[in-house]
């Protein structure tokens, strides 16, 4: 009797769990299901990011394309937020030479590494539009004369700050890291009285590619080079780099939460979004989300270039994503057409207006609609075109390993396991072993 009872309970539990799982399924799944598609219809799958409003906007563009082109259905596959995880997913498709995904959204640091898996977009009519885009990005995406990705949006690190709090404490937007440190402390001390969850400055400190971006900005702004220079010289072990990274380690637990060393873009944005930070380092996408209705900071924030160190001017890491067409696609021509549509004047404008994703088409920076949605595109134009590139081209195909060594070294300094001098001395040896490049 009791045994039956137990079984009965177990079955009930299973049933409840099944219902739960079924209930959680997204309604979009039905639309994405290839079985609903007519037999002679072409299905193009785009693997795209889901940071902030990204996914929503990509889905909109996919729908626009499907509506305009009968017989083609564009599906969007959402992929992990962390760059490493997304690369991992892509590599599994490539290893299997899978035709499941036709168009890939690829990071600005990947073209060199992944070129062998993509078609040359020049063969599919990209030549007509390539000159409209920032030349530096087109050059970055060109491997051995082949255009492996059409630029989709560019990124550069920005400083977000609270205009209301700066006014309240009679401060200006900080021009240097020292000022940022000082102001963040002042505001934090003041706000803490009412809001114990308030922090001065949030950024990306987890051990991942984002920390490479953040740390490169500190170092480049302090005249400390770019880890490995474009001509293949390792420069990371220098006093300016050591000084600024030690300074950043001092922020952890003072003006930034201890947990900043576990934060990626979205974790730091969550703190900012809730109104719990005075300053944030993030990419342009956070502008649109911060203006949204559910944001505590809507209308009371602005963006500026990142603060300067010794060099006298701030530095922003060049980010951004491209669309590439898989060599293993069954319909490369249609896939290339989808990619070129999404990265077209129309597609980029839509994303710029709706989601403040930076266009890579130069004309769009003069477009009144775009400037109305994101006024900083005009004022920070210089930041975007002068952004500092990570050493991905010079170290290809070993950039991932270089970056892992770098962000783990910096992470060790931030969590207090080492000081920057020791960490970078060791990093220099590691980079020498890995790349064989000489030291400055």
């Amino acid at each position, binding site marked *: 009797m009791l045994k039956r009872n137990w079984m009965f309970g177990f079955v009930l539990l299973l049933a409840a769990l099944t219902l739960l799982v079924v209930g959680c399924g997204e309604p979009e799944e039905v639309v994405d299901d290839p079985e609903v598609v007519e037999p002679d219809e072409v299905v193009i799958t785009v693997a795209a990011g889901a940071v902030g409003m990204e996914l929503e906007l990509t889905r909109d563009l996919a729908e626009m394309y499907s509506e305009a082109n009968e017989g083609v259905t564009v599906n969007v596959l959402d992929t992990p937020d962390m760059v490493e995880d997304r690369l*991992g997913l892509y*590599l599994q498709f490539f290893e299997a030479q899978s035709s499941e995904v036709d168009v890939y959204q690829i990071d600005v640091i990947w073209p060199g590494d992944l070129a*062998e898996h993509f078609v040359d977009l020049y063969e599919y009519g990209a030549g007509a539009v390539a000159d409209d885009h920032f030349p530096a990005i087109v050059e970055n995406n060109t491997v051995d004369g082949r255009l492996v990705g059409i630029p989709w949006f560019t990124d550069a690190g920005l400083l977000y700050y609270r205009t209301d709090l700066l006014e309240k404490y009679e401060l200006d937007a900080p021009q240097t890291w020292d000022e940022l440190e000082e102001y963040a402390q002042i505001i934090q001390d003041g706000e803490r009285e009412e809001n114990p969850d308030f922090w001065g400055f949030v950024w990306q400190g987890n051990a991942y590619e984002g920390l490479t971006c953040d740390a490169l900005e500190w170092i480049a702004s302090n005249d400390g080079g770019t880890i490995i220079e474009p001509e293949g010289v390792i420069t990371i072990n220098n006093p300016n780099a050591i000084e600024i990274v030690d300074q950043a380690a001092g922020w952890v637990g003072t003006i930034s*939460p201890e947990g900043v060393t576990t934060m990626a873009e979205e974790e730091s944005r969550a703190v900012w979004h809730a109104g719990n930070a005075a300053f944030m380092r993030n990419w342009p996408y956070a502008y649109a989300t911060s203006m949204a209705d559910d944001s505590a900071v809507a209308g009371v924030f602005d963006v500026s270039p990142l603060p300067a160190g010794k060099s006298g001017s701030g530095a922003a890491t060049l980010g951004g994503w491209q669309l590439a067409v898989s060599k293993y696609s069954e319909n490369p021509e249609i896939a290339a057409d989808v990619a070129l549509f999404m990265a077209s004047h129309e597609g980029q404008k839509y994303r710029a207006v709706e989601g403040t994703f930076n266009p890579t088409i130069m004309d769009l920076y003069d477009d009144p609609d775009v400037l109305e949605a994101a006024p900083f595109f005009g004022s920070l134009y210089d930041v975007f075109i002068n952004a500092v590139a990570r050493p991905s081209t010079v170290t290809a195909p070993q950039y991932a390993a270089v970056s892992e060594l770098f962000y783990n070294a910096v992470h060790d300094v931030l969590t207090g396991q080492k000081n920057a001098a020791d960490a970078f001395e060791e990093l220099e040896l590691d980079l020498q072993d890995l790349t064989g490049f000489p030291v400055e």
Partner: protein
Amino acid sequence: MAGKNDLDSSKKSKAPPKMGFSDLAKREERLALRLLLPALLIILLIAFYPLAQVFYTSFTDRVFASGEETNFIGFDNYRRLLSVHVTELEPVLDETTGQQLTDPDSGEKVFERPLDILPREPVRYRELNQFNLFGKRYVIGATDTNFIESVQNTLTFTVISVFIELVLGLVIALVVNSKFRFRGSMRAAMLVPWAVITVVSARMWEWMLAPSRIGMFNALFDRLGIIESPIAFLASGGYQLSALIAVDVWKTTPFMALLILAGLQIMPEDIFEAAEIDGAGKIRQFFMITLPLLKPAIAVALIFRTLDALRVFDIFQVMLGQSTYSMASYNYFQLIGNRNMGLASAIGVIIFILIFVFAVSYIRMLGVDEE
């Protein structure tokens, strides 16, 4: 093996003598073999073939997801993973007095820096650890400190989490084995954590352990006034492993309890009645009867859990990413992050051998095959 069994059975002399039946027995053996053949073939195909492939790849420098040419490089991958070097650190002496220098900040004696001492050719040894022996200071260097540390992390994680799960699982099993109302629903409810997908529960715990008052633990500690400022559980070395052990214990204790409960349910009631009559107390009954009879069930549960814990991947990957590795998550990083398929295969082989050793020694120690 067969000979030993024959001897045993003839000693016991309960089984009928086998002579005269040998023909039939042989025929049956052949039939059994033929019936087993399809299963064996499938195992060969799905288990041994990939395993052999991994063994082979581990001797090459193959790059994952690339058309690059692959070279045979012998034991290089294993050498890179396992090379360890121990050397003495000389004290740093003051040039004028000849006395050993002490650090003005910490007051500790100063030794040479491992970075200057450890060999750099042909591959660099990184500092893994330092220890004192007979008044001298030694440093352990390894060519791949990440891997050695990942082995240490995994072993620590396994031993502690499986031990706690065993103790808690035993207690829970004993409780739900006793008779009370709603016992059935209690048993079902207890399985909930185990039924949740590991990645989902890891994410859930990640939020509960969040380094601000968004996180349940920090909110709770803050309310109770235990902490000054929020703890970043997943950021610093000290808390990381303990947090993961807590998650694993929460998740798999029900499984442990379930296996032990199964062992408890087949226990005959009359032994306990007899013990009762003989005047044995509850505690004595537990240690003299319950525990020995539970041994096979516990052994099975322990083997399952230990082998599982040694392969731990999901919670390390989700909660710690690239900052601290388990063996499996380091394997994943080398394969996917670094695209170093040869090295990743070598790690796979080492994990395989380690788990194999654990499995065999467990079976020997607990005498499972004799039951």
